[in-house]
């Protein structure tokens, strides 16, 4: 508390770290997408290329939410306060 700049910087970094907790949902989402894709490929191996394409697409969507969390964290560190 004696050095307000260090205090603010410390809290800012703590906030940036906490912002990345949003990546938990993205991890679960990517896992669910991969599980669905792999199960579909197991049931119907002939359609594997189509399923793989759509699985990667679904994974990219789910991952984008983690990227939003990363963007918020970067904004807190570099551009806020």
């Amino acid at each position, binding site marked *: 508390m004696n050095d307000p700049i260090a205090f603010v910087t410390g809290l800012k970094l703590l906030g940036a770290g906490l912002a990345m907790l949003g990546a938990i949902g993205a991890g679960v989402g990517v896992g669910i997408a991969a599980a669905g894709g792999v199960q579909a490929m197991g049931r119907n191996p002939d359609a594997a290329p189509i399923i793989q394409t759509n699985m*990667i*697409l679904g994974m*990219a*969507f789910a*991952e*984008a939410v983690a*990227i*939003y969390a*990363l*963007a918020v964290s*970067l904004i807190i560190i*570099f*551009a806020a306060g």
Partner: protein
Amino acid sequence: MSEVQKKRRFGFFRWIVLALILIGIYFAFIGPSIYSPVRPAISLPPEALWPGLEIFGVPITNTLFATLIADLILIWMALRVRSYVKSGAMVPSGVSNFFEAIFEFLWNAVDGAAGKWARRVIPLVATIFMLIFVANLIKMVPGFESIGYLEPPKKGAAYAPVPLFSLFGHTVYTIDKGQPVRLEAKGAVSEGSEAAHAEEGHELCKGCQIVPFLRGSATDLNFTFALAIIAVVMTQVYGVMALGPGYFGKFFQFGRLVNGGIFGMIDFGVGILELILEFFKNLSFSFRLFGNVFGGAALLAIIGTLLPVVLPPLLYLFEMFFGIIQAYVFYLLATMFISMAMVSHHGDEAAEAHN
């Protein structure tokens, strides 16, 4: 079978890899400290190519320069494909071969989504794909984010410069990890030294970081935001091209509000929500691409400092893969949004209401 086994040289490449790993360990940990990678000063906004290089107050940035290089590569590729098409040969070679493979891949996706409008949609979305693809791949070239000019960092670690050799009368420096410099009173020093830089020309900083001449294009939020705006605005343009001005009735469903009862009001709300969603697509497109590429670059820089020996090549592979995937995702999403915009949405509703 035994012939094949006799011809294969036993374990040749593994010795090369081992030698490279040992050389890496020497340079990173044991050798002179100017060889080991320094802790990076990651800056979110792009920096000017040379301090003070501005046009009407807008700096010419290093990401702009990298985008120009990607543009030149694309133009060269287009000219090569044009010469192949004009020559009338049946089998392409070189860049045309590569381009034909990619184009078939792209065409399948657009044809499946857009149907009869595919020929008019594919130039825009394929160009966006090729630009992001080329921009993400050329940023993997060594030297891309490591050669630049010295400047004291606004925040982050600073290191002392060490002169290496002389090139065209100017000295080329490198920064030394073994000599970290502590900049006192960061706010005063950065303002003071920037002023010194402007007044006295090329005054060498005491504690420096490298500001690169080239930086990956998609690490710049301007680039990704511009592409996202192009994609979203062209979605509306394609919608009007296919459906006429009645396309905007998708958002403002006043007809349903007046004579639809309770479902009409819900449909009106859905229409307004779709309008807000159009703006959200901007954000989604730009931040997905920006976050992936910038996060990858920052990760490479930091892991390059912490563990410079075995992990960076794997991260490079990861980065290249993700760069291609993100280009493909951008392209596919743009295609799907354009295809959905061109399908008559209002017509189904009217047919439904008359039942």
